[in-house]
């Protein structure tokens, strides 16, 4: 429930006027004055207006100080930072594809390009961000993978490290953070290791963990590394980068909502294969079908109300999936949904024939066979209590 705006004091002009008159008229020099007189009245009018504007400014300031009453995205980004939540910017529209008739083995490398078309002839480019492998499922050789729409794909771009600040800056504010990959070569030896996005509410991160934190700025994102000391515990968080460290990032810059509605997909050329795998073969019998209908969930900017709802709940979850609210905020925080209405969670205890120890969930519009459903299930299972089983799909 959103609170009404904070009002430290009345914003009624007449009240302000009366208060000024009331205060000054108690002073002995002015007890005899007629404040309704034209000259004095004019001065008090001016002072009341001056006060009014100051109070308006004050109320704006105070309201921006709390996430629930903030009106500006910049303020919410700052509040979210305080609670360990990275506010996403533009988000890619995505679709799950099933590839068949592309050979008996082989794989598709990350950042392979796929063309999506609409019935009206519009075309957009979509990209894989993870490798996809052909495998036999019920006797059929196929691969299922998710593709993300993007205007630009930035692949393995080197960004300079700042060892003093233990960070590196990505000068792109419109990237989709769920497509961001960070690889680090700590000593500049040429061996890059992929780092995982961590959050400040995540407990027990040690110096041996290969993690990075992400902080949204007005003009881009700060990729923060370890070597920083927790002022509360004195503990050094994760491993530090140095001047020799090489950092490379890959991410997609999406079109946002304009990427929704594409349904006809085909590879642009023959995609390369990941190291150690064969290239797939494209022929007339190759089919690439969207198993979930048209591409969807593209966002131009985050919904402010959704942020106000989820940021404090994300903090409340402390990265653990215990309550329904925890699960919703973890899924939204990980980019699987953007509003609580997009997620349905039913505990086994709520069923007519209870199945205690099981939690059923569903992301609206996402089928159980989709990669999104599989990885979301895995995510919740990792963060749920022992003894609780997470199942995708809500019993009817």
């Amino acid at each position, binding site marked *: 429930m959103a609170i009404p705006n904070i009002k*430290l*004091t*009345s914003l009624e002009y007449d009240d302000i006027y009366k208060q000024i008159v009331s*205060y*000054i008229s108690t002073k002995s*020099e002015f007890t005899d004055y007629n404040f309704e007189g034209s000259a004095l009245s004019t001065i008090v009018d001016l002072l009341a207006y001056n006060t009014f504007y100051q109070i308006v400014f004050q109320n704006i*300031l105070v309201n921006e100080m709390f996430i629930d009453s903030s009106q500006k995205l910049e303020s919410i980004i700052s509040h979210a930072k305080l609670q360990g939540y990275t506010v996403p910017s533009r988000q890619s529209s995505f679709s799950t594809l099933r590839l068949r008739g592309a050979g008996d083995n082989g794989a598709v490398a990350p950042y392979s390009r796929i063309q999506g078309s609409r019935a009206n002839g519009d075309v957009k480019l979509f990209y894989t961000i993870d490798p996809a492998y052909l495998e036999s499922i019920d006797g059929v050789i196929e691969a299922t993978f998710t593709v993300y729409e993007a205007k630009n794909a930035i692949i393995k771009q080197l960004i300079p490290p700042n060892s003093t600040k233990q960070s590196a800056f990505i000068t792109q504010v419109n990237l989709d953070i769920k497509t961001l990959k960070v690889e680090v070569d700590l000593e500049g030896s040429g061996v890059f290791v992929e780092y995982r996005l961590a959050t400040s509410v995540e407990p027990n991160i040690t110096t041996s963990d290969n993690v990075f934190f992400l902080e949204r700025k007005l003009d881009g994102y700060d990729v923060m590394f370890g070597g920083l000391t927790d002022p509360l515990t004195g503990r050094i968080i994760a491993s530090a980068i140095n001047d020799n460290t090489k950092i490379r990032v890959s991410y997609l810059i999406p079109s946002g909502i304009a990427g929704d509605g594409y349904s006809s997909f085909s590879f642009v050329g023959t995609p390369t294969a990941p190291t150690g795998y064969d290239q797939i073969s494209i022929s007339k019998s190759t089919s690439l079908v969207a198993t979930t209908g048209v591409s969807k969930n593209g966002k131009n900017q985050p919904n402010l109300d959704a942020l106000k709802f989820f940021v404090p709940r994300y903090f409340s979850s*402390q990265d653990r999936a215990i309550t329904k609210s925890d699960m919703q905020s973890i899924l939204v925080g990980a980019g699987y949904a953007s509003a609580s209405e997009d997620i349905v969670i039913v505990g086994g205890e709520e069923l007519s024939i*209870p199945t205690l120890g099981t939690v059923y969930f569903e992301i609206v519009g996402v089928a159980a066979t989709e990669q999104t459903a599989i990885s979301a299930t895995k995510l919740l299972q990792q963060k749920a209590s022992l003894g*609780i089983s997470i199942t995708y799909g809500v019993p009817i």
Partner: protein
Amino acid sequence: MFFSSLTGKGNKTGNAYTPTKIIGGEHPIVSTSILDLLEADLKKDTPFKVINHVPSWLATDSKDNNTLLVKFLQYYYDWLYSSKDSGLYVDDYIDLMDIDNITEETKDAFVSSFIPDIDVDGLDLTVEQVKDVLRAVKTNIFQKKGTQEALATLFTKIFPEIQSVGVERGNLEFTIQLRIVNDSIRNYDVYETVYKNLFHPVGMRSNIQIIHSFGSEESRRTEDTIIQRELSESGPTTTNFDSPRIGNYFVYNMNDAESLPAYSGESGSTHGRGETGASGNTANVSNLATYKHPNWIYGVSDGTILGDINIQGLMSQPLSANNPNLGITQAAS
């Protein structure tokens, strides 16, 4: 014009002018010099000194008591900078985000920004409660979510009427017992909503049981429940105890009751422990005789069966004047 009379009229470009009139000039109070006013301001720690922000000719006029405008404006700024009077917050704004400075106006903002799940109808927290909960919320509530400790911390902090929180555990299900004293109990939905919003582990079955009572009776019940819970967790359960149907003399050795007159109720069979009742009666575990005890004051009638007595009840029998063991002399063997 009031303005001109306050400021005085004269040649503002020249070094000297003659004010036409000084409003209130004859009033003794107006003779207060601006320096006195400033001194008073210093005492009040007024942060804004009007005299420093007006043209020098006006400042001079004010010092010479030729105008009240500066004083008038100073009063205005005194009012403006007094949060108490104007309501305008003029201290460091960031202080408003300090938990110690939560006010009635900002407490809801704190709750909505950090613990929105307790923002439910029927629960109106005081400023002090909000401060208290916020101090504990991360380390003692959120990070311990799912534990009895976190549950107890939250409930006792936001519901002052809750004396203690107990949990009866089962396999993937449990009952939360909220022990409430005095008459300030709320609607059950309030407790349940807060619990479900913030704590209910989805996938498990739970229910909330409210134990509501008054005064010292409650203390004794709480103690009994604690004993029972401890026994169930770390020792024999209540079903492992002997719960024989006994007469009131059975708390001591049968042979000690020699002087007590027996009443009807005995069956004549041999007691399980092989003892024979005084006065030649043998006792039956299912229907023991009742004796009129000299110090029994709990309303037991002669010759009646006491019925089942939970032997744990005897564990806490106080050694007071009401103790039925008092006054019994051991019989000669």
